[in-house]
């Protein structure tokens, strides 16, 4: 049975295998760390690889190496400088992923996230996302009231529209636009989107869109003609 570890003040951990790790103060992890669960309330810096089942980050963390986590919950501010493999990811705070997040089951963003590549079966964004490379998902849903900037969004089922819940509606009347350079998918529904090119099988363009080019295969339904410059069938 592996040990538990709790850090209250300032500590340097050389890695190893643990059951539960809790950091209240500040910790530097120098080697590879394996743990059942880990919670960071203070600050932590990881210089080795991490294999953790449940990782909850409430403080400030920085990861230099590859991280593999089953459930990752971020409520603080974090930075990941290498690839991340995670099954379930929830972001309430602010986070920066500088490499790929891959083979993920579910990603939910309520806070702010800067990502480069994100691959997941289900992606739900209700916060702000800055994506410099590609979002790739089986199903992608974006609620537009915080605005986002995405270079490329691809997947099977893509929906971008304002959050219809009434209290959100009252709070922010003006839904912000989401800037997405290219969108490619099978079924696409867009509202409040600024885009250069949208390509797919079945495309529905709702109100408040500014789109340069729509290329569709089966059907295309445009509710506001002014928002689309050019439509082509392939």
């Amino acid at each position, binding site marked *: 049975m592996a040990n538990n570890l709790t850090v209250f003040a300032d500590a340097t951990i050389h890695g190893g295998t643990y059951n539960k790790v809790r950091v209240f103060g500040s910790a530097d992890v120098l080697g590879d760390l394996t743990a059942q669960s880990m919670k960071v309330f203070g600050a932590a810096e990881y210089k080795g690889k991490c294999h953790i089942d449940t990782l909850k980050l409430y403080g400030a963390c920085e990861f230099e190496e590859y991280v593999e986590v089953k459930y990752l919950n971020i409520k603080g501010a974090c930075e990941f400088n290498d690839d991340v493999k995670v099954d379930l990811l929830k972001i309430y705070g602010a986070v920066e992923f500088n490499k790929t997040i891959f083979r993920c089951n579910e990603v939910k963003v309520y806070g702010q996230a800067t990502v480069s590549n994100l691959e*997941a079966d289900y992606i739900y964004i209700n916060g702000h996302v800055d994506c410099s490379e590609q979002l790739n998902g089986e199903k992608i849903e974006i609620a537009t009231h915080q605005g986002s900037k995405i270079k490329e969004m691809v*997947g099977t089922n893509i929906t971008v529209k304002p959050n219809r819940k009434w209290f959100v509606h009252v709070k922010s009347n003006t839904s912000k636009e989401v800037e997405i350079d*290219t969108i490619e998918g099978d079924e696409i529904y867009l509202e409040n989107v600024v885009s*250069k090119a949208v390509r797919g099988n079945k495309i529905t363009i709702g109100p408040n869109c500014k789109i340069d080019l729509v290329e569709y295969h089966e059907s295309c339904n445009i509710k506001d003609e002014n928002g689309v410059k050019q439509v082509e069938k392939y």
Partner: protein
Amino acid sequence: MEEITKKDLLILTGISYGQLYRWKRKGLIPEEWFIKRASFTGQETYFPKDLILDRIDKILELKDEVSLEELSEIINKKQSEKEITINDLKETNLFFNQEVFDLYEKETIGFNHVVLLKLMDNIYHIVEEKEELKNFYQFISKYAKDILNDYKEIYFITSNDKLTSIFVKDSNNLEYQVDDILKVNLKNLIDNIKLIVMV
């Protein structure tokens, strides 16, 4: 290498954007095959034509028998421990030259050695002295694990009936001025063999 645009690829193969990106997500189509170039709509993606068509054919062929998750598991697993018999291997039609089986002596064969044999199969036609092939095989089977894990590409040059091989870890800034050169990309080779042998 001949290239194909994404739209042409979808029309030619009849698959959809969703399928293409699902396979990419599952690791069945490697990231390096998506070659991005600037165009008037931002950017256009190109693919190496032969490689991608071959891979898509294989996935379409297998997807009725094996689930996508299993395929993904097979192709992304680092090392496979499973051994198969030489006779089973002969039935897969993986090899063009049946003579290469003479190089291997045992009854069952591990995955690494299948890759090495296939490598021998690929260079079989450029080597005239078959004794040389045997020596080369003995050399690489000694370091099989290291070669397959660490190196990305192998270049083969034959001049004056001598076989020269160059093992490359990173081919991005490699320049050469030799015409008679055979390039083998190890990852593509391994992935293709996995899809044939391990399923």
